[in-house]
């Protein structure tokens, strides 16, 4: 057999590989990802510009420059005393961000009732000094709280096939099961609940926390299985297992990372996340290891704990909002909520069995 025939044989073998149909769930998951991407306008301003001619782009740039100059002249012509050498004074310093506790660092004691978990990593701030205030929109002192329930027959836990990685057997426990649907007493854990602004309004945003969001590899699993964090917040990945894991992030808009952690590692800081998106983190050595990371460009999100409850941090003005709940297998659900007097309790979701 000559080398051309050998190549044709190899191509035929590859062409005839049995692929079957797309696995159930992947099409729905892809559709959900497409809708999320559409909502946040993945193509963006620059993307839309690509389809235009060079002349149009130049005209747009010129228009922007003229507008900028006009605004500059208008503003400074009204301030004849303006001295460019003098440092600017803060007219209205931004208010301190609300303090929110960290769900990733809270571990309720055994037997203790879990409080609603808030996903935010911020350090406590000293009380702000009293200052003169002018009339401002009412700000919610508390948050939106609620539960995520699962209706229907709870499917039995799916055992994980760990036969390919014997070294994990000692770390995984007796009967490791799949974490993609965790239901306890009719409530769903690992659901990300977030606020979506109504069209035309923007959510008030506080600075991203400096303390990192943490993802640990422990017992040949990612902990937490679902992590939510802010744009601008660093992420630290640690390895609590004395064996080799590989951390591969399937990012699209954020910096990709893919590295090995051969043994126990207190943490590798991968820097701040740059854009809002949802991405998976996988280990190539242990195929069942999977985590989802949700990166938000605002602080109003939470992940349900084992008791299926959540609490969105304070800071939202009164008004109507859409609350979105995401579950990795069941997709998204939305409910409309209205904040009155800074509170909106009873924002409850129900996911039905597929």
């Amino acid at each position, binding site marked *: *057999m000559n*080398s*051309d025939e*050998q*190549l044709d*044989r*190899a*191509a035929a*073998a*590859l*062409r*005839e*590989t049995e*692929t*079957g*149909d*797309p*696995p159930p769930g*992947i*099409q729905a*998951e*892809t*559709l959900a*990802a*497409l*809708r999320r*991407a*559409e909502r946040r306008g*993945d*193509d963006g301003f620059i*993307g*839309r510009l*690509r*389809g235009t001619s060079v002349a149009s782009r130049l005209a747009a740039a010129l228009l922007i420059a003229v507008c900028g100059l006009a605004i500059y002249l208008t503003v400074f012509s009204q301030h004849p005393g303006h001295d460019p050498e003098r440092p600017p004074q803060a007219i209205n310093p931004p208010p301190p961000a609300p303090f929110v506790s960290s769900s990733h660092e809270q571990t309720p004691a055994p037997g203790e009732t879990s409080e609603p978990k808030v996903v935010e990593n911020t350090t406590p701030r000293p009380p702000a000094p009293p200052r003169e205030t002018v009339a401002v929109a009412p700000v919610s002192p508390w948050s939106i709280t609620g539960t995520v329930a699962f209706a229907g027959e709870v499917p039995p836990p799916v055992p994980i*096939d760990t*036969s*390919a*990685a014997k070294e994990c057997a000692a770390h995984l426990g007796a009967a490791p099961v799949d974490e993609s649907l965790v239901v306890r007493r009719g409530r769903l854990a690992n659901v990300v609940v977030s606020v979506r602004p109504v069209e035309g309004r923007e959510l008030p945003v506080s600075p991203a926390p400096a303390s990192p969001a943490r993802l640990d590899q422990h017992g040949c699993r990612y902990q937490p299985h679902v992590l939510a964090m802010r744009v601008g917040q660093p992420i630290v990945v640690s390895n609590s297992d004395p064996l080799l894991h*590989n951390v591969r992030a*399937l990012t*699209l808009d954020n910096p990709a990372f*893919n590295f*090995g952690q051969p043994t126990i590692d207190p943490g590798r800081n991968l820097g701040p996340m740059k854009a809002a998106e949802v991405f*998976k983190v*996988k280990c*190539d*050595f242990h*195929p069942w290891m999977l985590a989802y990371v949700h990166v938000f460009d605002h602080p109003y999100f939470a992940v349900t704990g084992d008791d299926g409850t959540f609490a969105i941090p304070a800071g939202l003005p009164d008004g109507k909002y859409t609350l979105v709940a995401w579950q990795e297998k069941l997709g998204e659900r939305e409910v409309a909520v209205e904040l009155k007097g800074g509170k909106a309790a009873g924002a409850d979701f129900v996911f039905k069995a597929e």
Partner: protein
Amino acid sequence: MTDWEGIVARDGPAVWRTVYRLLGRRADAEDCFQETFLAALRLWARQPVQHPRAALQRLATARAVDRLRRRYRESAHAGTVTWDALSHPAPSPPDRAAAAELSQRLREALALLPAKQADVFCLYSLEGWAYAEIAKELKVSVDAVGVLLHRARAKLRAELADVREEPVAHSTRVVKGSL
């Protein structure tokens, strides 16, 4: 607004075949499947797309080839094991084992090609596209497609030269650089 539901339902199976065939691993194929449609979303936003399936298959091929390149370059450095290969230890019939061996070798060889050559080879030899179709989708001339394919085949022939002709029976092969 693009009818993504219709597009995913209609063209999803073709995209799946493309990515799974090239990658040979379900988890990778799932990720690549999703990446393909997200790339399509960006493409759709930039320009009108006349033949969605052709565009999707081209995107799927390019992304799968990128993944192959990353996979084999990383595994060559890190000494990783292809778990898919090890997780099916049961002996296969000899011809199936030989076909699997050949497919695997071709995947490795494709990872070594320049991206455009690999794309042209896959679209021509695996997807069955004509030169003119490839030229249109990749925005190159028909002659250039011929040249790219010729170069791709020459390199692949060289890479596959050491494949044994007799079937490899009752074995699962561990890729280069594995433990």
